[in-house]
């Protein structure tokens, strides 16, 4: 699924750009959005195959809110979400996929920033394989 569409939602342009380079290199079509509103517009315009979502953008919980919204909508609920989290830094809580409460934090995987290129690619490939 090398030509899959991936949407990166992150307000840090440098991290977004670095991830874009990594995923571009792998042949993915990469799009990006700096906040939830822009992300929703992009998703409606063209449905991505995977969303990479930063937890904290304008507000500390923006990523959580967006992920819940996406999972509630039948049109988007099947899109896997890879959440980039620096939550551990803010809360000291170690988020693990197995600890995720489906309804509270409905995402498929977590990664802590900064993400190593090979780890990012691995995770993305695994998530796309599942769908």
């Amino acid at each position, binding site marked *: 699924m090398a030509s899959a569409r991936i949407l990166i939602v992150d307000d840090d342009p*440098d991290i977004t750009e670095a991830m874009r380079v990594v995923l571009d290199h792998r042949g993915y079509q990469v799009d990006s959005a700096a906040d939830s509103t822009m992300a929703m517009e992009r998703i409606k315009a063209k449905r991505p195959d995977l969303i990479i979502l930063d937890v904290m953008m304008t507000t500390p919980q923006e990523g959580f809110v967006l992920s819940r919204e996406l999972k509630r909508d039948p049109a988007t609920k099947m899109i896997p979400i890879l959440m980039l989290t*620096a939550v*551990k*830094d803010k*809360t000291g809580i170690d988020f693990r996929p197995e600890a995720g409460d489906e309804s509270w934090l409905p995402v498929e995987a977590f990664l802590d*920033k*900064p993400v190593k*290129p090979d780890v990012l690619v691995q995770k993305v490939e695994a998530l796309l394989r599942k769908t």
Partner: protein
Amino acid sequence: MENLLQTTSLARRASWLVTLRWAAIGALVVAATVSRRFMHIDLASRHLYVLSGFLGVYNAALYGLLRWLTRDSREPSSAAIGRVVTFQICGDLVILTMILHFSGGIENPFAFFFVFHMIIVSILRSRRQSYFQAGLASALFGSLVWLECCGFIHHYPLQGFAGHGLYANGVFVLGTLFVFGVTLFLVVFMTTSIAEQLRAHQEELEKANRQLQEKDTIKNEYVLRVTHDVKGHLAAIQSCIDTVHEGLLGPLSEGQKDMIGRAHRRTSQALAFVADLLKLTHAKLAGEPGISCFSLREMIAKALAAAKSRAEGKGIRVSVDVAPSVEIVCGEQVLIEETILNLLFNAVKYTPQGGRVELAVQDQGTQVLVQVRDNGMGIPEDEMDKIFQEFYRATNARAAERDGTGLGLSFAKQVVERHGGCIAVRNNPEGGCTFSFTLPKRTPRP
């Protein structure tokens, strides 16, 4: 100044008075017996024995009352305990007066034992209460000797000890009473003055301590914010460097590769440092611990697997020995796991090729003892007490491994102490060192 002493410490003092009274009862029986049998002083011993018996019953009742007030380790009101203390002192003054009555009255030098009560009440109770007790003691003793002097009540002389008839000598009685009263009031005056100064001083210290803790929290929150921001920038730098380092933007010359490699390494180190600092600061700031019960055995197995994969590269043998009875422990799972990992990774890091790392867990009843032993470089003896300090790295560790934040062990100490355990390290006689920490099976709620 009333009720300034902490209720619990007042309750402890009240119980201490009960213990003292048991000793006093014993001493009274022994003194009465010795005076009569061996010193041939004629005493109204039977009366004294009866009084001892009464004192025993009275003390047992007080013991029961205090137990009831502090039952289920609940906090009694300080006023209630205060009243018990006052009641005890009043009761003691009356009983001491009765003992003196049956043992010579004014002729008995034990009359000055009233001073002890004055000291105790001045330390434990308010200034007003203390003067009241001094007044009561003077009145009780004064009435006794006056009634004996005037012949209204019987005088039990100390035959064979004091000159008979002193109790009826008006000048002697007046003089002694005067000195007695002045002594009691002076003792109260001096003791309450000192006690009040000490209490004020204690208050100041407590206040200063509270302020220090508040400042420390503010500092930690500041560190957290700054560190978090720094981490954001470092993560972005690292991500950008990674793309170049991995050759995703085209091939690099040898020189470019080398420089980017250096930048990559230093950013990784800075990130590791920031991550450790964040962990430590979180542990310090965390309020109510999120306690859960989990299998320590399973956690150890997981930590061991992680350590083994690191050790393999260096050919280090990692072994484990968990006592069969060790199973469920209640505490902050993530923090405890991180602590065990920290110690294991440290051991692997500072043990040379082909070395040995052993993890042992012993069951000690209410707690477990976790030990991580290696045959690595050990720790210089004069640095033993410093290695748990923040940012401190032992000189030999720094020389052997450039990487290291000096925060891992302070994190471990913070976590262990937060759970009510203690952490220590010692060098092994055959080389290397052993880190050990205790962990209560059930962490007390703060």
